[in-house]
């Protein structure tokens, strides 16, 4: 008897039992179920939820690998012993740092999914598959594991399960997790010590009296908010050799992933494009405020406003956010026109929050969460507008 058959027998035995959903999830994860309906005609589509999720995770893999290299690279850079970017040393440090994050994210998140599936008695949903991969990529690498676990519990329960599980959530769970961490443990989520692995530890050693040089690795956005320009080159920003959350630094790889998602029709190109347009419009507005001389050098928002509008597209988590999170099909607008409005406003607000609220340099997270809330409203008015237009047409005809 083959393994496949054995698993099937176990499944048959477990029908109606408490653990059946948990086993079913494992089973369908390993094998495509061979249970089919027997009557009537059916359309078979290959692009089911599992396939969609797998494609997004595939698109995330390059960012993850790059993140591992970059984690090590930034570490050695900051500690004054530079190594080659593509070196085994750099990769190994990043790998050891990231693996626990990934494991915690998946174990805790899937644990909760299974728990809820058992309580509610339905099949386990694949919804956490992508979220679990996104989470390690959008946090600072040195985040303590228990904090991540607490945040994942919060994000999955409050962000998703209370609304009825995958497909019913109004907020992107990965961003709920990040927002929770951001507001709950701000010292671990911002500042100049968290982005380079080992920097916080080194700071503690210095406090305790060790004779060492302080290490800092501020993000570009963080330092711009302070009014200083770190002077990274544009190619460093584009290819991602900069400090930041794990997977967000390389705009180049994110761009490739975005094209891949567009090509496979998993991500909406309308949302990505309109977000970029929105960000450019807001960036240009700020640039022209500077050009017109309405804001003086040395004042509060000058440095950020003076940043060329296209730099904003390369900085921080903007690219990562709009490619992987704004396009989340559950929480985004559903209508075509709605997607344009939704995306545009995400880009627009991201840059606005970034510039006007230096305490929250990562505007894209808050902008997407905000627009998640408004997405149903946008859809409602788009649909109503369509109804009104067609009614008018009907009246003209009958009149």
């Amino acid at each position, binding site marked *: 008897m083959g393994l496949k058959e054995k698993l099937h027998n176990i499944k048959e035995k477990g029908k109606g039992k408490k653990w059946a959903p948990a086993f079913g999830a494992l089973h369908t994860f390993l094998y495509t179920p061979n249970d089919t309906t027997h009557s009537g005609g059916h359309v078979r589509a290959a692009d089911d939820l599992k396939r969609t999720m797998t494609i997004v995770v595939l698109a995330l893999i390059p960012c993850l690998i790059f993140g591992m290299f970059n984690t090590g690279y930034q570490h050695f850079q900051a500690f004054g012993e530079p190594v080659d970017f593509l070196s085994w040393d750099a990769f190994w440090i990043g790998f050891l740092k990231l693996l626990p994050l990934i494991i915690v994210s998946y174990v805790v998140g899937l644990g909760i999914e299974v728990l809820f599936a058992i309580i509610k008695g339905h099949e386990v949903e694949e919804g956490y598959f992508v979220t679990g991969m996104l989470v390690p990529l959008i946090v600072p690498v040195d985040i303590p594991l*228990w904090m991540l676990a607490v945040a994942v519990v919060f994000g999955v329960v409050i962000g998703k399960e*209370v609304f009825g599980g995958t497909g019913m959530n109004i907020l992107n769970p990965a961003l709920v997790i990040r927002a929770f961490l951001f*507001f*709950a*443990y*701000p010292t671990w989520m911002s500042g100049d010590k968290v982005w380079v692995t080992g920097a916080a530890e080194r700071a503690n050693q210095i406090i305790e009296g060790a004779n060492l040089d302080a290490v800092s690795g501020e993000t570009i956005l963080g330092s711009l908010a302070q009014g200083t320009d770190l002077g990274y080159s544009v190619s460093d920003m584009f290819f991602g050799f900069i400090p930041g959350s794990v997977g967000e630094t390389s705009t180049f790889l994110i761009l490739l992933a975005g094209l891949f998602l567009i090509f496979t029709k998993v991500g909406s190109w309308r949302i990505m494009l309109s977000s970029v347009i929105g960000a450019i419009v807001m960036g240009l507005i700020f640039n022209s405020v500077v050009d017109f001389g309405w804001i003086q050098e040395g004042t509060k928002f000058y440095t950020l406003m003076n940043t060329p509008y296209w730099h904003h597209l390369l900085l921080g988590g903007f690219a990562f956010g709009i490619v992987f999170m704004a396009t989340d099909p559950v929480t985004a607008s559903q209508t075509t026109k709605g997607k344009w409005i939704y995306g545009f406003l995400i880009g627009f607000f991201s840059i606005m929050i970034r510039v006007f609220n230096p305490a929250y340099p990562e505007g894209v997270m808050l902008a997407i969460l905000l627009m998640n809330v408004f997405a149903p409203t946008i859809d409602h008015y788009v649909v109503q507008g369509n109804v009104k237009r067609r009614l008018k047409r009907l009246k003209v005809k009958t009149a």
Partner: protein
Amino acid sequence: MGLLSKKDAKLIKDPLADNNPITIQVLGICSALAITAELKASIVMSIAVLFVLGVGNVVISLLRNIIPPKIRIIVQLIVVAALVIIVDLVLKAFAYELSKTLSVFVGLIITNCIIMGRFEAFALANGPWRSFLDGIGNSLGYAVILIIVGFFRELLGSGTLLGFRVLGDPIEKTGVYAFGYENNGFMLLAPMALITVGIIIWVQRYKNTDLIEEH
């Protein structure tokens, strides 16, 4: 029943759980969000509401036959306002620091929907003794939720209870802080109070499915 008849006891028991003013009637949410970052403030607020609602219900009940219906809201407001001013002055005299923490929210007891709601719904139609019990019951129901929320917010947000460091010292790194635990700053922000109230509502309806509203 010795002290209270069954009907009277129900006046106290009902608002504690199955007809709770906050989780079932969804009244008084504003103050539940605003002042529950500390357990002490929650308790003092509960006592203040207990006093205002208990006495106010009796006063309105005594006056119920002579208040002209057209101006009853104004009369009710005057009664609440008078009682709230008493509370405010007492707090300022005997617990100045605390009255600063509660700041404007003592004054805002006037606008607490629970109070006007009980005046309108109960005190205007019932005798003083029953109105008194109803006032006590409802403010206790309010207090239960406030204290639960305040307990969790202070414990997880500041690591203290009533000002005592029950989890150890975060700066000296004693107690749980020695293991790398940190206070959750989000608990001190108002959104987390809303989520905590939401979780209480969730748990309560999960235990007693009769409470789930029809759509």
